[in-house]
């Protein structure tokens, strides 16, 4: 296991190099000039001389690979640079926004697990019965609702009509409920269907029929035989979902005035704030690789077939 984790960490370093380099090249290839964008955001169109001077100061006249190397060297010294948009170090800007994103993502993920698993299992166990129909129809509606629309509808019902919550989310328990519901309802509905399908597939397996014939109770079959086998693909999917959540959700943040990382990065991309974009890319790469590593470790722990397969490899 240690070897496996070490191998994945080495992979993470390669991934980090790759994605930061690719992002650097892609953002450089975009037609708008960061030096010019800096002045446009101040409300002026600079003269060519001023632009040239600014490009020189920002190091934009150097070849892309030189700029990347310089940025990388600074990163190794713990310096992610200064945000041109926010006029402060990238790290402090990230530090301001990340807690809100982590809070929203964490709570959403927990709520999603707490609701999707019981309902998914119930739908599978009660296949083609009324509970299954209700859950399936409900999940169909949930999946179909776009986030921004759902957010506004929830806001209208719970904040305007019922007055239970505020329109502007506060950083407290009640303030997080509507953004969490907006994020999780479509996710919950998607996972319910995934979980149901995964369990139903396993229910028809020979080992389940065998277990039944040996008189093992349905509950035991479900939780100790079916679930460990059915859960692996779900965990992998969840790894991707939590990555998405931690990357920020600009639309939900906009609707609920939630000060997370999503809007920050949209703005950074708009004004070509290279340092902030790069920091975000590092964050996302670490998150995706880290979460997927955790998901893989969990799958190995839960499913002996994966352990045995990897051993034989």
């Amino acid at each position: 296991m240690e070897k496996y984790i070490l191998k994945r960490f080495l992979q993470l370093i390669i991934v980090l190099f790759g994605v930061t380099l690719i992002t650097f090249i892609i953002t450089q290839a975009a037609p708008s000039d960061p030096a010019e964008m800096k002045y446009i955001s101040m409300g002026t169109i600079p003269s060519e001389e001023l632009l040239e001077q600014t490009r020189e100061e920002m190091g934009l006249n150097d070849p892309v690979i030189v700029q990347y190397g310089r940025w990388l060297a600074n990163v190794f010294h713990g310096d992610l640079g200064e945000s041109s948009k926010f006029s402060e170090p990238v790290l402090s800007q990230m530090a301001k926004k990340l807690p809100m994103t982590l809070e929203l993502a964490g709570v959403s993920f927990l709520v999603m697990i707490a609701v999707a698993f019981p309902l998914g299992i119930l739908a599978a166990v009660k296949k083609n019965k009324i509970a299954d129909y209700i859950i399936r129809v409900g999940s169909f509606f949930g999946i179909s609702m776009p986030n921004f629309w759902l957010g506004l509808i929830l806001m209208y019902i719970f904040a305007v009509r019922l007055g239970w919550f505020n329109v502007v989310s506060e950083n407290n328990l009640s303030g997080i409920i509507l953004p969490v519901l907006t994020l999780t309802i479509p996710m919950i509905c998607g996972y319910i269907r995934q979980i149901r399908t995964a369990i139903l597939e396993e229910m028809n397996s020979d080992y389940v029929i065998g277990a039944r014939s040996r008189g093992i109770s349905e509950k035991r079959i479900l939780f100790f035989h079916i679930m460990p086998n059915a859960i692996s693909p779900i965990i992998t999917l969840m790894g991707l979902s939590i990555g998405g959540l931690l990357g920020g959700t600009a639309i939900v943040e906009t609707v609920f005035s939630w000060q997370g990382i999503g809007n920050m990065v949209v703005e950074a991309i708009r004004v070509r704030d290279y340092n902030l974009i790069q920091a975000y890319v590092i964050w996302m790469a670490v998150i995706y690789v880290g979460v997927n590593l955790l998901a893989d470790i969990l799958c190995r722990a839960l499913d002996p077939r994966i352990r045995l397969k990897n051993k034989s490899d």
Partner: protein
Amino acid sequence: MKKLFSLILACVLTVGTFAGCKAESAATNSAVSTNSDTETQKHINVAFFWISTGLDPAVDYDGWVTSRLGTSETLIKLDDDLKPEACLADEWKNIDENTWYFHIREGVKFTTGNQVTAQEAADSIMRAVESNPRAEEYLKIDHIDADGQDLTIVTKEPNAALLNNMAEPVFSIIDTSCSDDEIRSKVCGTGPYMVTEFVSENKVELSANPDYWDGEPGLDGITVTQIVDSDARAMSVQSKEIDLTNTIDNTTLKLFTGNSDYNVSSIISPRVNVAYMNNAETSPLSDVELRKAISYAVDRESYAGLIGGSAAHSAYSDSTPFGNETIDAIEYDPDKAAEILDEAGYIDTDSDGFREDRSGNQLKLKYLQAADHGSADSAILAQAVQSDLKKVGINVELLAVENLSDYQSSGDFDFYTANDNSAPTGDPQLMLETMYTKNASSGKQNLTGYQNDDIDRIIEEMNKTFDTEERYKLAAQASQILNDTAANLFLTNSYINMVSLAKVKNAEQPVCDYYFITKDITVE
């Protein structure tokens, strides 16, 4: 089944518990607020669509925010006719082509307690000029002399627009003895309100400035929150969480209009919704006949019905005093549009319902649309233009983009949409110079490649014309040329609005959107 109901019940109870906590907390807050109100406190909650990352008026457009917050003021202000009126300067005159004199009002104090003198004003103006290239271009300053309350600005070249330009909030007069950090978080200005707490892009707490020179502010405190989404702003007023906001979409505004629970103040602003047309050779719209046909094909009146405001007659909004009544506007006439297209050789040769260009090649125009100020108006307009042009056989492809500048820089567009201020400082020159000459100097730039020698000549004349009415006449001439050459699609003059709960008094939307919170706003 029982388990399912139990689960649903558990979820509902959980939400109910949270909501209960919230309701209790809201009730408590409300009670505190009400009790305070009855004793001494007059406080309201306000929502802005944008709060900047800092509050230094000299940085970027942050001055617009500090001005709207009522925390900073300029030497002169713009009234609802967009004409200069006294503010921190109570007297001014143009001494010669290059020299302007301002008398600084006596007895004005910064929120720091320091007096506003001509030297303080000069230091503040120079700080803006040194920090912000926009400020430098507005003034074309050579040097400033300060003596007591007398301020003299000497420019490098004749700058007839200087007086109006002094109203731009980048020239907010602030106490330069404050550190940059203090200014960034507290403004150190002269407005009726001062900042007690600032959270970047999120919230500003204001309290009344006890030393305000123009009388006692109508409120003791104001909490200003950023709510980017227009619908969310509207709902925050409906839920009574916010007492006052602005820039509500027209479709939503109907919820408040005529309802005695709310005050609605709407006014036509200097902003014009424009579909800019690419005049460069790379675009089919470099053909003036095609541009003219398109200008006749769009039904501006119906667009105004959709998004509010009024049909635009020219590059300048009807709210400006630049002689719109003398201009021949292009009216909706789809038959004439079709006739121009036929005569110019744009014919549907393959009977697919869309015209081909003069060479018989497919004609498909790319229309870039991006949200502006959290409003849906630009998307509605884009679809309406697409629909109208389809009726005369012109195929338009809509592209909703996050970042217009990439396309603009590469010239990869035929139309792009914008909600632009046609008189940013109440003067006609700036918009004309930045959007229709090659000397794009401030704010935006001429991205459409439009060039006209007569417009260039008018700009030169404006530089030397100090008489206001003469400047307006020149603006009208320019405006007529832009219409005659179908420079762009001037679609609608935008409404701007303020919506408040009935208890809020004297919240009137000014024509110039530099201003929002004033000393007169109060609460019953």
